[in-house]
């Protein structure tokens, strides 16, 4: 059932820009149109490109924020989230905790 929803109406997660738009809903309470426009501006692409695998695979690879297929030495998990927080200019609790453990604000 969840997969059916994802295929019928989901943005595609890290295959495209789904996680990035989701972060804007979670951290700034943005509705879908505003969240997509915000992410598109940050990525310097069009809103339609956000769910275009042919565009987003290269964008994510260039920004090193996790992509599919996975790249062996590419950032993923908390490393990717550190980069995503900076890219989107948002604060993430997980990233704050991770940086505190590293003893760095970078």
């Amino acid at each position, binding site marked *: *059932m*969840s997969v059916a*929803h994802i295929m019928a109406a989901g943005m595609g997660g*890290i295959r495209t820009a789904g996680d990035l738009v989701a972060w804007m*809903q979670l951290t700034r309470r943005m509705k879908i149109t505003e969240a997509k426009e915000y992410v598109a501006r940050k990525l310097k692409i069009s809103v339609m490109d956000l769910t275009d695998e042919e565009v987003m695979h290269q964008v994510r690879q260039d920004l090193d924020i996790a992509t599919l297929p996975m790249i062996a030495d590419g950032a993923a998990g*908390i490393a990717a989230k550190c980069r995503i927080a900076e890219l989107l200019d948002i604060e*993430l609790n997980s990233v704050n*905790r991770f940086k505190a453990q590293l003893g760095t604000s970078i």
Partner: protein
Amino acid sequence: MPDKIITRMGDGARIELSREQIQADILAGSRDAADRGKIPELDPDELDQLFEIFADTNRIVAVKPGQEVITTDDAAAMTLIGDQADGGVALPLSAMQSVLTYERVCCADTAGIGHTDYSCKPVKPIVNFEKQKYYTLNQAVTIPLIYGTQPNLGQYFQPDGAFANPSELLPAGKIKEARQAQEAAAEQLRNDLVFVARNLYDVGCDGFNFDTAASAGDADFLAALQAIRELKQIAPKMAIELGMSSEFVLGLHGEITFDGVRLAGLYPHDQVKMAEAVGADIFGPAVNVKATKSTPWNLARAVTFVKETVRVAGIPVHPNVGMGVCGLPLYESPPIDCTTRAAKALVEIGKADGL
């Protein structure tokens, strides 16, 4: 176009209806929602749009390019390892393997996890285990990882819990005692919800889902609202999603108010205002399904409620589209034709921000 359109009853049984029957059911479903919620019906264009979704002869439908939305869930990332009660498929995998598969194979936008019971009360004594699980998974997962739990006030009443059971007190005419028991249990639930969520926050939790809220009525809803308001003060960097259990807050207490609003009887477009007021970041309305009515009737009803909820909401709205809510048949393996039609209709007509 064929004379008969294949669709389903609210219990999942496949049926064939004429075009006129589908149109009549859609209109009646929308009118039922409008009448109960005192909200606008779908307009003629929207009724036509919904009819076209049902008339599509393809087994699976989808939203138009550019209209995709965000998916959040109630621990669906764990369904690979869950059993029948969770809609799970019982694969012999670890939680890590299940969640990463959900992220990298299913390509979900977010991933929900939780205790296998998925209620707050059982989590409290093992919260350290849940903290460790969340922390470990969150180091590996890139998409937002959301920890979910049901408030589930029912578990606090005897014989499972410490408080007298209103279901026994009410038939005995002990209304005052039943109300007092609910108030006391709600206070305990609120404390437990805050305890669990605050502990998850301490290990970097990015999102917490109060799922199936108000399942035990207005006292259950009160505990969730109070807990969210408190958490937004002590855990401000953790997003909170509030998902409902039904379209109508049951008045098992009947006199409970919050911020001067009587909770019993609130429909989704009123519930979302409460969610917004306490600081919830995403709201998930649930619209009931009648098993004896057709899916066109049920989905039209759900879309009518969701459209009004989205219209008045200042926060993202992600309708709960699981078994038996928001147009999906009341069946543990919802047919894919209805599932995708519900997704498309709720997004394209209801204007949902996610599912």
